[in-house]
């Protein structure tokens, strides 16, 4: 209904610690401002009406995208979805993350919105959380009480709720390297049009043993529960077993039962089944093929 924002003060900390200090000082009346897309929309709708915006967009210490020698990926919260989607590093090592980031919003929104801002908003229909959950990503937080690390699957506690305290800041997203003989993908379906919100999303990682059986299967589900979840029962069914179509289909069925969609529930559960089935089948095929190629 409103096109403009209510007045606020715009604070520009010179460092992360200064930002934390401002958060502590202003408490509930302040919000961190990174890309701003989600926040500005919420402010226009008068859902959030902060008195202070703490602008961190210029803090270069929070804007990095690099890989360690062991393959660990480290990203600052200010990296935009567009940058992640286009990054050769991400596309080579974690293509499912590039895919998911490429699905966020529209091209313009991807140019503006940051991974940190998106994760802190914790909207229930996001693309990156199910991927980060299946990649077992960790978030590093900084606050007046020091630093702490939270696994991605514990970061969100519900729609628009995270464990991030009012006076804390996400300073890094760390993604551990994938083990050998593995592949991951992001499968999703939008609500209706191509650039629409995601109706159901699955981040699937498959790891095979040398003998070709499932070493590990990780299934992150997004948009079908209050927050992104691991379909642990489905994973347990597959772990240690021989990949077989019927078994994978059953696991997909169990994954759909682990989902807790609030609206369009039957259709969403159905889509979880379809997406997980597709994801696990394809990733198994991909790893098996690359193992065969390596053997030759």
């Amino acid at each position, binding site marked *: 209904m409103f096109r403009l924002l209510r007045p606020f003060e715009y604070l520009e900390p010179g460092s992360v610690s200064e930002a934390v200090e401002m958060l502590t000082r202003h408490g509930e009346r302040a919000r961190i401002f990174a890309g701003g897309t989600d926040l*500005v929309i919420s402010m226009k709708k008068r859902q959030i009406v902060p008195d202070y915006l703490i602008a961190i967009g210029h803090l270069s210490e929070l804007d990095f995208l690099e890989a360690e020698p062991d393959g660990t990926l480290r990203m600052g919260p200010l990296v935009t979805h567009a940058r992640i989607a286009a990054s050769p590093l991400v596309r080579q090592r974690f293509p499912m993350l590039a895919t998911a980031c490429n699905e966020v919003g529209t091209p313009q929104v991807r140019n503006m919105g940051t991974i940190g801002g998106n994760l802190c908003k914790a909207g229930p229909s996001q693309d990156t959380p199910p991927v980060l959950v299946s990649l077992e990503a960790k978030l590093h937080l900084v606050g007046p009480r020091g630093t702490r690390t939270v696994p991605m699957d514990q970061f969100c506690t519900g729609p628009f709720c995270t464990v991030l305290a009012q006076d804390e800041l996400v300073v890094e997203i760390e993604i551990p390297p994938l083990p050998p003989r593995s592949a991951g993908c992001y499968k999703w379906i939008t609500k209706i049009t191509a650039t629409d919100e995601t109706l159901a999303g699955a981040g699937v990682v498959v790891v095979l043993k040398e003998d070709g059986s499932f070493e590990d299967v990780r299934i992150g589900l997004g948009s079908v529960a209050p927050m992104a979840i691991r379909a642990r029962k489905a994973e347990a069914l597959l772990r240690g077993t021989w990949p077989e179509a019927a078994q994978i289909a059953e696991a997909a069925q169990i994954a759909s039962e682990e989902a807790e969609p609030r609206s369009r529930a039957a259709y969403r559960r159905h889509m979880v089944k379809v997406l997980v089935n597709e994801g696990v089948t394809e990733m198994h095929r991909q790893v098996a093929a690359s193992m065969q190629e390596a053997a030759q």
Partner: protein
Amino acid sequence: MKTVATFVVNGHPHEIAVEPHQLLIEVLRDHLGLTGTKHSCGVGNCGACTVLVDGIPKLACLTVAREVRDKPILTIEGLAKDGVLHPLQQAFVDYGAIQCGYCTPGMILTAKALLDGNPDPTEHEVREALAGNICRCTGYVKIVEAVLAAAEVMRKGGN
């Protein structure tokens, strides 16, 4: 409280006193009188307010103005040079890619950013780049044709 900030728009610096809560679209339309950048949905779905910040398509209706001070901003008014239309503008006119014209500024600027980075895009790449720009009049057919035609002109050195 207003503070003076410099906004570099279409190559010209402007010192403007802005309140912290003012959006870039207000600075452009109301302070600078550059009404080519349009309000439409306000929630980041339609692209009508697209401007180029440092050459990157961004949404002026979701940008807090202070955030882009000192950065080069290109609006539709800054595209033609000395009365000569940019190849994209000319192509849009020639190919019937403009009907009501309301989505046109955002469309052209987004297309410009595409062609500046990818001078020879496929049709699919054009559609992907414009996926965040809604047009309710043309069905996008002539818009895509115009972008591809402009790309060819630009590759041949026409500017």
